[in-house]
């Protein structure tokens, strides 16, 4: 974590930026401290005391800033902020988006502010501590509902979810050969760039190429919708986080990612994200979306999930190896790849 935001100068520039944006008479940054979590982005706790203008009062916010190095697929802060606003407009429970800053003179890199909420997102705690997240079937069902709300956004309906004057999502490319085959091509390309051959992943990609579902309905997918990326408290869901991988894709892809074994945090018998059975999660999704879940497609996307996470893990490791990001967490992430390869091989062999 960079410490260039630690001094009074950074706070002063942040305060001036917020003051100008909100037409406030004065803004004081009372706290600016790093938050844990987020291997890719930097998150800071930012407390503001604002007088006058559009949002007077004391506000507890998160400042989310581009990291110094980045992973291939992840979006920048400006794009993530646009997605967050669309998700909020679609009725998904997210932290209220506040302000985006793309003026690098303020804090060196792009960042945005959103409301800071109480709760925990830590997946390993959620699967072990029964009091977190409220009744688990209800939580799983609610998550299905949240996902269905996001999937209401399509290239055709997008206009309904854009605030007047808000930028669209033009930065999200439309799939060329369909989301599945596009991903296969992208991950092959990523493996070529990373260097050392990974034959198990190549095998997985070949399987995914041969079994790709025909391109269907295109919706806005989160692409990292899983335990660990939503905030809960004792009562239940607080917010869906981490929108940096949003894309146009197949609805079942998000369900497969959520249920994939690699995101159950060791609670492998609870197939919906390590927190519940699949049934309540699917029930919530079907009720809210009016769509039927497609079990075969979900299986396919679970194979893709392990494949994709393995590629991302290797890319994280590459930030350590080639881009000289000294984080031990990144370095160790690359070593998860072998375990994910094992899952790819089991899944492709179980359903030839």
């Amino acid at each position, binding site marked *: 974590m960079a410490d260039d935001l630690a001094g009074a100068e950074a706070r002063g520039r942040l305060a001036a930026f917020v003051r100008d944006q909100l037409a406030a008479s004065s803004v004081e940054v009372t706290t600016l401290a790093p938050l844990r979590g987020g291997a890719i982005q930097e998150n800071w706790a930012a407390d503001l005391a604002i007088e006058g203008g559009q949002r007077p009062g004391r506000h507890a916010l998160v400042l989310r800033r581009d990291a110094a190095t980045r992973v291939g697929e992840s979006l920048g802060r400006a794009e993530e902020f646009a997605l967050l606003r669309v998700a909020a407009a679609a009725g998904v429970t997210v932290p209220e988006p506040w302000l985006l800053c793309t003026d690098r003179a303020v804090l060196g890199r792009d960042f945005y502010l959103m409301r800071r909420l109480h709760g925990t997102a830590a997946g390993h705690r959620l699967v072990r501590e029964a009091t977190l997240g409220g009744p688990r079937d209800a939580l799983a069902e609610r998550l299905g509902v949240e996902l269905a709300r996001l999937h209401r956004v399509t290239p055709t309906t997008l206009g309904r979810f854009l605030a007047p004057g808000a930028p669209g999502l033009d930065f999200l490319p439309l799939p060329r050969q369909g989301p599945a085959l596009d991903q296969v091509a992208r991950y092959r390309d990523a493996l070529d760039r990373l260097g050392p051959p990974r034959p198990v992943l190549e095998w997985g990609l070949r399987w995914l190429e041969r079994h790709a579902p025909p391109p269907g309905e295109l919706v806005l997918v989160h692409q990292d919708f899983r335990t660990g990326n939503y905030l809960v408290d004792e009562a239940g869901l607080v917010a869906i986080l981490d929108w940096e991988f949003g894309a146009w894709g197949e609805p079942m892809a998000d369900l497969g990612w959520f249920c994939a074994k690699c995101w159950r945090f060791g609670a492998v018998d609870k197939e919906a994200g390590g927190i519940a059975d699949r049934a309540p999660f699917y029930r919530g999704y079907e009720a809210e979306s009016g769509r039927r879940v497609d079990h075969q497609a979900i299986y396919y996307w679970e194979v893709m999930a392990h494949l994709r996470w393995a590629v991302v893990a290797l890319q994280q490791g590459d930030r350590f190896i080639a881009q000289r990001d000294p984080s031990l967490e990144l370095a160790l992430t690359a070593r*998860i790849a072998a375990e994910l390869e094992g899952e790819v091989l089991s899944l492709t062999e179980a359903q030839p």
Partner: protein
Amino acid sequence: MTNDQPAGEALLEAARRLLLDELLALLPAERRYDGLMIANAMAIAGRELRDAGAASAAAARRLSAFYDDATAMPEALARRLVVDIRAGRFDDGPARERLVQLLRAELRDRLAISNPKALR
């Protein structure tokens, strides 16, 4: 040259035990995870020091048996394998079975170093 003793692997293991058995309890709660990550990194490095040589020799032997080619470099055979998989040369039948067997063997050796708990 003979390396001085004790070997690097033994040093790593002793250091890791000291970290886990005595230092971890002294760390503030919010740094405990960092302590565990360090111990994990040391364990992987220790296993790699011990096993990586044999594992990479075994991988080379497997590849040369797979392609019945004793002269090509292992790196060249590994690249050929990637090309062949992408081209669909092992999609079905006995070719597929042979490939999956090869992949399982490679995976076993990789996991034995990176994450032995995942071996089952």
